[in-house]
């Protein structure tokens, strides 16, 4: 629904870098480079970011 605050495996805080990651990737930067740059180095944390599907905007429309 929304990026988890921390990585499921190691506990690194990720919800604070997710928006920057999205913005920079939209601008055309390479995702792996952006992750390196943001200090997301381990693959447990990297899969949290690139497997994330943001459903909250869609579900939000169906609640009154």
């Amino acid at each position, binding site marked *: 629904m929304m990026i988890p*605050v*921390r990585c499921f495996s190691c506990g690194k805080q990720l*919800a*604070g870098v*997710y928006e920057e990651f999205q913005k920079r990737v939209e601008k055309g930067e390479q995702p792996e480079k952006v992750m390196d740059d943001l200090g997301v180095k381990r693959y447990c944390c990297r899969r949290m970011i690139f497997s994330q599907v943001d459903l*909250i905007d869609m579900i*939000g*429309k169906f*609640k009154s």
Partner: protein
Amino acid sequence: MQKEEKIQRKEAIEKKEMTVMAISIKKLDEKHDVARYLVKGASPSFINMIRRGIMLHTPCLAVEKVSIYENDSVMFDEMLAHRLGMMPIKMDKTYKMGDKVKLVVEKEGPCTVYAKDIKSTDPKAEVADKNILITKLEKDQRLRLEMEAEVNTGETHVKWQPAIVSYKEVPELVVSKDCNQCKDCIKICPEGILEVKGKTIAFTDPNACSLCRACVDACGKGAIKLVYNKNEYILIIESAGGMSPKEIISSTVKAMLEKNKEIGKALAKAK
């Protein structure tokens, strides 16, 4: 086959003799709240004690109770409370074990609720990363809640773990005369830290070695070996954001001393 491999591995990681020396700590670098220290004169059990001390006995601040007055967002109350609990919170040195602080948040949509929208009632404690996403609110949706953060340790719950801590040995390369400089090991090294130096192969930066041993396996001649120094370790502290790595170590040392005192007292009472 398996046995053979085991013997080979054992040989390759044959350790140097351990010598007793005074402990010294040197900071190698710090980036994104991740600090790497070179610790000399420590044994594996000692460095692991520090690691466990940081993870289990170092007090830090995290949200423990959430009172939700209004939550119209699509995020369930439980999920929201969990997100808030996972959020690292900064505190200053005046905070002691068991201390509590109140935080509040009030928002009306349409908007994204960030950690920066959370107001602390004490300026000495605040959310560590202002950009943490909490939830999203659509038009006419409201969020109003109160949190109580508490100082506690990782022994109770991982949210009170101030850092992710790891350590690794500092390797040394031993290249025999059989090396013909084919550069296979240089090509395979995922960290790219090997180079030809004269007639042998050498590290450009031994501290960056991940100890994956790909170089050892790649050498068809068996000419390259990794030897670990038993007295030197790289201690990696990834702060969750609540305290700086240095503060974490000093606070851990203090907490461990307290624990030792407790043991001393209990021992005195024991018959």
